[in-house]
């Protein structure tokens, strides 16, 4: 099987930023070459994809999604989650372990990978639990989890309160090459809060979550990384204090990496409006100062990547009193469009965006997804100028919870290719 992606503007940060052809042979990249100058030019490809006017990039990787299977298939299955992923331009996702049962054992990891294989869409890199049952009491069996295919460990959603457990988790995970991902939250300071602490929470009479409930744990985990020498990846950064702490940590040479999500650089706590549960998430939407600090962090490299924290919920969890509603929003299908705004607004260049959403996540996960011969052909083709309206009723995923319904966005994936197969085409 021979495929040619013809005449697109190829952006592979640090390597290529030019109009090129890409030749794919049997699922792998065979050659990236000047237009019409490939070594296979004289042969006739089985398929030619005309990418003129489009941007061709290494497939996007979302390091933070919730696929809900096993246990909550009514919100999302691995298959529907992956349909959403490829519709967003993602060729791989890391799925968090808070399924039911929790992904704290090899059987669940294997189950997830088998389901993903059957779906045959985007790739799945399972993130296993740090602690058994996400309870924060004892370590899961990392060796077996690694063998089964886990790529990292995290108790996402359930902050690891014990500094000792977190230290041991990082040290123990490192000997199996598993990355530790930290959901940073001091539960005591968050104190059952359901939105950002500030004038909006005061006006609405909702319990607030202060910024430092996040940043104090970011600081702890940076120090633990310093102590152990083990890399730590900070999940979904929302607060300016966290951005500052990560910036300082990097200056000190500590192996800390971090992600933020499109909602943190797009919205503020004002989006809660009159108790709109679609704007309820954890960490919560912060203030304008935080939003700008997150953008600055993306600009100067303090924040390494954009992830989505894709958290599908049914109306059962969202059509409720605000304080009782579940946290989280669907992110996979709006991530690129929302992030492209940073490019259209001139805040970052397209190459930086590709780094944030594709090659840097790969690096952090120890993968190589550059567009170079021999690598799997995982590719996204983006129309940077496509104007479209978010319509949650048309989401490929099962759930529709998003604060962006009805928004006009510019830029989206028009084709997603995994292992040389077209898995999504607009």
């Amino acid at each position, binding site marked *: 099987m021979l495929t040619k992606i013809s005449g697109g503007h190829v952006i592979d940060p640090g390597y290529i930023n030019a109009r090129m052809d890409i030749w794919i042979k049997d699922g792998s990249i065979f050659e990236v070459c000047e237009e019409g100058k490939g070594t296979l030019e004289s042969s006739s490809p089985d398929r030619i994809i005309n990418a003129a006017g489009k941007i061709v990039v290494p497939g996007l990787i979302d390091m933070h999604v919730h696929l809900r299977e096993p246990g909550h298939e009514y919100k999302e299955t691995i298959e529907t989650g992956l349909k959403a992923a490829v519709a967003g331009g993602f060729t791989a996702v890391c799925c968090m372990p808070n399924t039911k049962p929790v992904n704290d054992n090899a059987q669940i990891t294997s189950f997830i990978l088998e389901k993903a294989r059957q779906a045959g869409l985007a790739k799945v890199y399972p993130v296993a639990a740090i602690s058994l049952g996400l309870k924060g009491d004892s370590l899961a069996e990392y060796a077996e989890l690694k063998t089964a295919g886990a790529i990292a460990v995290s108790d996402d959603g359930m902050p690891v309160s014990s500094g000792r457990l977190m230290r041991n988790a990082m040290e123990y995970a490192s000997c199996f090459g598993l990355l530790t991902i930290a959901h940073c939250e001091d539960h005591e300071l968050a104190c059952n809060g359901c939105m950002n602490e*500030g*004038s909006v929470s005061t006006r609405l*009479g909702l319990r607030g979550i202060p910024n430092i409930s996040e940043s104090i744990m970011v600081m702890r985990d940076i120090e633990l990384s310093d102590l152990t020498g083990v890399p730590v990846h900070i999940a979904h950064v929302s607060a300016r204090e966290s951005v500052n702490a990560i910036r300082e940590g990097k200056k000190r040479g500590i192996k800390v990496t971090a992600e933020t999500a499109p909602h943190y650089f797009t919205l503020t706590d004002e989006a809660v409006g*009159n*108790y709109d549960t679609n704007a309820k998430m954890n960490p919560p939407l912060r203030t304008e100062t935080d939003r700008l600090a997150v953008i600055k962090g993306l600009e100067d490299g303090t924040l390494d990547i954009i992830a989505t924290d894709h958290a599908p919920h049914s109306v059962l969890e969202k059509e409720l*009193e605000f*304080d*009782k509603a579940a946290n989280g929003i669907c992110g996979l299908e709006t991530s690129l469009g929302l992030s492209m705004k940073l490019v259209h607004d001139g805040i970052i260049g397209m190459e930086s965006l590709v780094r944030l959403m594709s090659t840097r996540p790969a690096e952090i996960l120890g993968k190589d997804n550059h567009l170079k011969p021999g690598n799997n052909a995982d590719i996204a083709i983006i129309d940077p100028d496509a104007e479209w309206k978010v319509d949650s009723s048309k989401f490929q995923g099962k759930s529709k919870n998003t604060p962006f319904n009805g928004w006009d966005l510019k830029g989206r994936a028009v084709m997603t290719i995994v292992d040389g197969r077209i898995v999504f085409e607009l």
Partner: protein
Amino acid sequence: MQLSGKDILDISSLSMDEINLILDTAERMKEINQRPVKKVPPLKGKTIVLFFHEPSTRTKLSFDIAAKRLSADSISMAASSSSMVKGETLLDTAKTLEAMNPDIIVIRHSSSGAPHFIAKHLKASVINGGDGMHAHPTQALLDMMSVRQKKGRLDGLKIAVIGDIAHSRVARSNIEGFTKMGSEVVVAGPPTMIPIGIESMGARVAYSTDEAVKGADVVMMLRIQKERQGDFLFPSEREYAREFGLNPKRLEKAAPDAIVMHPGPMNRGVEISSDIADCGRSVILEQVSNGVALRMALFLLLSGGVKNVDED
């Protein structure tokens, strides 16, 4: 003039004119409550559901009496006796209620925003009878009514609100109400009880009761929720009473004709000394009486006017 919206969810969605209309109407209702036969017919055939998801005796009783004096059929529904204890969601409860065609629903709920949620799903008028830490608009309106009676106006006054502002829906609604009507509101309490950003609602913050009370025309004390002592908000009732409670000596700092208010129920000897609660400047019981008249006014206005009452 009529109210512009179908619901009474908070003070911020009422205009100055609407507040004046409500207070004026309530004044006219007071007379009915003094009659030997305290019942008029304007809401005959109307159904008012009192849906109290959170325990409350006085507010519920006040709404109930108000409904009955206007000849409405009032039906009480408590969370403990509703299907919500069987796991029914608020949305399902709302839809069930809707199917029974009530005219007005009064809701008290422990979750902030629950009345907004219900109102969005119902054709009936919804009155917020207190939601979480958010709003208690009928309490604020009856407080404004009580102040207007005593002071003859609502503008240019200094209102001190003292106590656990962070957890008080009464405080929030009163801040919105009195500042909207042109008064200055000063809140006071220990910093653990002053929420971040309360200034953005129009209040000035003092961390000392003495400072807040100084020159105040109205001193409004809030109930200390004793169950909150485990939240590290204050060390003991003894210290709270001494530092933040209202006593005769502290009240001397207020304007000579200052009045004392409390939404009740009171912790005598904690936020308010017993002699102050019972003194001639206390309007605490008048607040309760005004509550009935005020709620009658709201029922009438939401049902389309006051014409029938005048004819009666």
